């Protein structure tokens, strides 16, 4: 599945790295706790989160996560978007809540979980 497919499925707004929409993604992790991402998001290249602060971008950068989906219409600040852009992270904003966002993606069967031990 590409980031572009995700964008269409979620009717999401693209906030950074438009040029990476054709990038293939395979595994997602959903959490508002960045420590949980650091501990458990083993092979994720997509992060779904309702947390909206610069540490989301940092966490994604340090874990090589290439796409962040902010849920419930949470809009990152310009400085957060710049941080994502500088690190090649594609940022999407969806109006769906976390349960719906994860469910829509999981239902396609084309994107899996990314949790250590699962």
């Amino acid at each position, binding site marked *: 599945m590409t980031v572009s497919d995700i964008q269409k499925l979620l009717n999401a707004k693209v906030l950074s790295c438009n040029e990476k929409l054709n990038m293939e993604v395979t595994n997602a992790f959903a959490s*508002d706790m960045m*420590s949980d991402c650091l*501990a458990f998001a083993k092979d994720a290249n997509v992060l779904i989160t309702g*947390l909206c602060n610069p*540490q989301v971008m940092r966490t994604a950068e340090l*874990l090589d996560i290439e796409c962040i989906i902010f849920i419930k219409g949470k809009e990152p600040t310009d400085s957060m978007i710049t941080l994502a852009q500088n690190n090649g992270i594609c940022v999407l904003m969806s109006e769906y809540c976390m349960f719906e966002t994860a469910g829509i993606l999981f239902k396609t069967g084309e994107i899996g979980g990314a949790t250590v031990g699962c």
Partner: protein
Amino acid sequence: MAADNTIKLHYDVPNDDFTRAGEASSDLKGKLKQMGISPDAIRKVSIALYEGEINMVIHANGGYIDAEISENGLKLVLCDTGPGINDIVQATQAGFSTALEQTRMLGFGAGMGLPNMLQNTDDMIIDSIVGVGTTITMFIKM
């Protein structure tokens, strides 16, 4: 590698500036990538150091980090003059946290910091004196 081939780096972790936490981890990650270090080792370093940086900002009003890269691996020394850790065994248990609700609102403070650091290092020593500060020494093979 001879001692003079050891690469030494120093980072200051700003006092109480949550938005800048992670800058040292990000910089070190970039440098290790340029050096051709394996992605697995870089991932471990990134997670361990980032958790350490966050701890220094939320618990200890910042501090400094010294990194030493040699052929054996990476040694990281994280030093702060914060409140210190009262019970180190308890502090390293997953889920134990003294963080305030405000910290949890920022996505941390779930009691996973020190456990994540232990999980991603080959050796880790915590020296802490209550009221004086904490020094954490981590070693990661590369």
